[in-house]
């Protein structure tokens, strides 16, 4: 081995050893433990064959898909708007929209409680107007709201960065040819932002599928996969099932990101 190559190997070694010992090995272990329970390797199929697990899988994917669509619409409108129009207060708006960027899931859950919980703003306002107290924080609707809250800041950043690179001349050309603002958005802006939408959407989706903190803060009986895994592990002490389910969950999020990366041509990773 050339001395230079040897040096590079040495430099990579600490990170490599750490990673192999604390990620690759444990993940392999998790995989085998998943197949070591009462049902053996069938545990990996249980997510499709057991109705309870399958239902939670469906609701997890459902809430994640809804989050992704709503987040992309919101961030698409506001992101392009803030990028295109410079007006006093623009920077302040951007700062406010990206402020919750690093809130952990538990804090997001608490923000949902402040809005839609038992002592929340929506409940107070609705009680004052209609006499009925609207409380939906501790349900799937609250979880959905929390995931949108979590996803909007990072998605807006991605959309703004992509919108900056769009060529305004294309829009002007479309407009001068008589296209309505709606057609310009549909035929010029949205196709131009497609890679950003795919990669940001995939991050949204993967994060919503795997997130745990928000659901944990809102209610332990929300039927999404991460909560099911947690319950299997702690209450039922069914470690094999928890291992199998979380391995499948990990494979799903990883696959979503990998597919999006191929489609969007840029590296994508979930966060939070």
């Amino acid at each position, binding site marked *: 081995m050339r001395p230079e190559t040897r040096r590079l190997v040495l430099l990579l070694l600490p990170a490599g050893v750490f990673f192999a010992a604390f990620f690759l090995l444990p993940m392999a272990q998790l995989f085998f433990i998943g197949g070591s329970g009462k049902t053996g390797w069938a545990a990996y199929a249980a997510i499709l064959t057991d109705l309870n697990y399958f239902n939670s899988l469906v609701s997890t994917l459902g809430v994640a898909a809804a989050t992704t669509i709503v987040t992309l619409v919101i961030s698409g409108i506001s992101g392009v708007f803030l990028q295109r129009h410079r007006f006093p207060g623009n920077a302040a708006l951007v700062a406010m929209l990206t402020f919750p960027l690093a809130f952990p899931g*538990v804090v997001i859950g608490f923000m949902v409680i402040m809005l839609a919980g038992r002592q929340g*703003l929506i409940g107070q306002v609705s009680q004052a107007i209609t006499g009925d107290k609207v409380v939906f924080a501790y349900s799937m609707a609250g979880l959905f709201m929390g995931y949108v809250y979590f996803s909007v800041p990072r998605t807006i950043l991605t959309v703004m960065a992509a919108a900056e690179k769009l060529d305004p001349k294309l829009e002007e050309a479309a407009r001068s040819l008589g296209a309505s603002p709606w057609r310009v958005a549909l035929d010029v802006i949205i196709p131009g932002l497609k890679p950003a939408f795919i990669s940001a959407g995939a991050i949204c989706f993967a994060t919503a599928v795997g997130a745990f903190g928000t659901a944990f803060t809102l209610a332990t009986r929300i039927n999404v996969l991460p909560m099911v895994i947690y319950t299997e592990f702690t209450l039922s002490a069914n470690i094999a099932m928890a291992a199998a389910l979380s391995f499948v969950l*990990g494979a799903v*999020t*990883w696959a979503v*990101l990998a597919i999006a990366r191929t489609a969007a041509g840029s590296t994508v*990773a979930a966060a939070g």
Partner: protein
Amino acid sequence: MKNKWLFALQLGFTLLVCAFLIVPVILSILAGLTVNYLVGLESGLTLRWVIEVWNGYRDTIFLSIGISLACLAVTLVIGIPAAYVLAKRQNAFTRAIEELLVMPVAVPGLATALALIVTYGGLPGFRTSWLFILVGHVLFTLPFMVRSVLAVLSAIDLKTLEEGAASLGAGFWPRFRDIVLPNCRTGILAGSLMVVTLSMGEFNMTWLLHTPFTKTLPVGLADAYASLRLEIGSAYTLVFFLMIMPLLLALQAFAKPRPKKFVAEETE
């Protein structure tokens, strides 16, 4: 005329989104400083809840600061050399390594934590120590440090700079210290901010990795939300805001010219 309407409509929408994100933050700050949130501000302002949080949960704050700084130290020591190697050799092998390194971010924290527990949970001294949490945090934050440094190293002409120094007789370590490190300091700084912020707020893994003696700030938050009155939960959240606010502002200042830097980014 029509354009004005469109502008107003979009502005109104954006303001609504802003309100959705910011109003709960303000409500929670107020709740943490109000004597009785149900009665409202008329009940008066107080620091009582903040003091109660400080007395009850001080340890979680110090543990979180300690872990995030330790996490920063580890990611710096193992992450920068790794990024350097990935920048020097760009081939299928190093791309595969980069891909692997990002996996703990793509895979849910719950799965990583379970994997660590089934593998190392049996080692009593390790399982109950804060080092167990540190391992999880390093796995999760390392990709952010590596990518951040790698992005800068790929943007500069590292080869020419190093050859220049080498032709003047600089050995490897002087080159690394005097050429490589100073040139990627913006990447190191951005990566460091990201690592500390993420480690401070990590919950998905930490909730499974923690023990009664190793509670971090987000773990304490979840505890407080579940069992204590709204005012205390809010005061605790306020403390958390105060701690991450400087980090967030610094991150935002950094994010301005190239916001994509903090989203995982393609390096060419």
